[in-house]
């Protein structure tokens, strides 16, 4: 009988920031302002507040631009329908039934001009054929350019979700050295080992002497689990009257693993 495998999933603390990057609405605002200046006609231009949302490719494809700037990565995508609308806003009428290279070039030029918004002039927007925002860890902010007749171009802006700043957040606090400092661990004192053949070990019996390396007492290893943390020499320590304990005086701190 076989049992289906089950994968146990443990809840993990959410480390994602719930605050969108400040620059994203500013970029949207800048695009909206430039659209009013660059596009023709009576256009209603709006932009959303950033919200969490994953990228989805348009039904007939899209074009995308990618920028690296001081604050991170940004994408702008625009689907085919919106490209056609944008072209119409520029040339004052519909484009060819099948997009021509010149029309494609015009659309690209316009988008790059819009993206070159105030505050983002240092960012180099580059059209990318293959790069798209991946996963659902993205902020999304749409800029919508619409005519009264209903023709609409939407520029979709994306920014990756950053990790939360752990300071002041109890769910993301790390264990501090001072907290862990009170935990006890076992330190073991060993004499450096020798190698002996199995036949010799099988002959061990009370009264026999197992030879150790010369000077072994001058080189006692202190180990925590299998790691040699220090070495020193063997001695004894007086604890109370008539009570002594074996002790090791550390000569050298050594973090290398045990041989």
């Amino acid at each position, binding site marked *: 009988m076989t049992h289906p495998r089950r994968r146990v999933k443990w809840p993990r603390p959410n480390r994602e920031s719930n605050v969108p990057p400040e620059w994203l609405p500013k970029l949207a605002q800048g695009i909206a302002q430039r659209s009013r200046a660059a596009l023709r006609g009576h256009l209603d231009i709006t932009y959303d507040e950033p919200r969490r949302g994953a990228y989805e490719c348009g039904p007939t494809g899209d074009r995308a631009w990618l920028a690296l700037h001081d604050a991170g990565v940004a994408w702008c995508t625009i689907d085919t329908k919106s490209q056609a609308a944008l072209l119409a806003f520029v040339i004052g009428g519909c484009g060819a039934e099948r997009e021509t290279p010149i029309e494609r070039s015009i659309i690209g030029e316009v988008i790059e001009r819009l993206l070159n918004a105030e505050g983002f002039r240092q960012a180099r927007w580059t059209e990318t054929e293959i790069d798209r925002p991946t996963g659902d860890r993205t902020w999304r902010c749409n800029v919508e350019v619409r005519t009264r007749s209903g023709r609409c171009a939407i520029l979709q802006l994306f920014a990756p979700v950053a990790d939360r700043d752990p300071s002041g957040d109890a769910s993301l606090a790390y264990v501090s050295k001072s907290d862990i400092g009170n935990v006890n*661990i076992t330190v073991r004192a060993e004499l450096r080992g020798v190698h002996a053949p199995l*036949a010799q070990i099988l002959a061990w019996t*009370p009264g026999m002497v197992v030879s150790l390396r010369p000077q072994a007492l001058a080189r006692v290893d202190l180990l925590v689990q299998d790691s040699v943390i220090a070495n020193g020499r063997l001695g004894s320590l007086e604890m109370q009257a008539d009570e002594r304990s074996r002790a090791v005086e550390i000569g050298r701190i050594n973090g290398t693993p045990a041989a």
Partner: protein
Amino acid sequence: MTSSRVSLDDLAEVALDVRVVLGRASVRIADVLAYTPGTVVSLDIAPDAPVALLVNGVAVAEGDIVLSDDGSLGVEILRVISTADGAAQP
């Protein structure tokens, strides 16, 4: 001649790691982090108590540290720990 089993004779020359455990101490991590040359670490055992002989990490015997006339160092076996005693911890 062949045999269907590996004999101890076949393994007689296999070298095993022998270590001598002098003692242990339960220490706070903070104290371990404060170790420096010169620190004395007190072990939880009397100076004249037997030491444990570990073979590949398993305690198999106890003995006393002895210094022979020629100056060589060794452990004189006092007791062989059988499995009936329960395997001692390394």
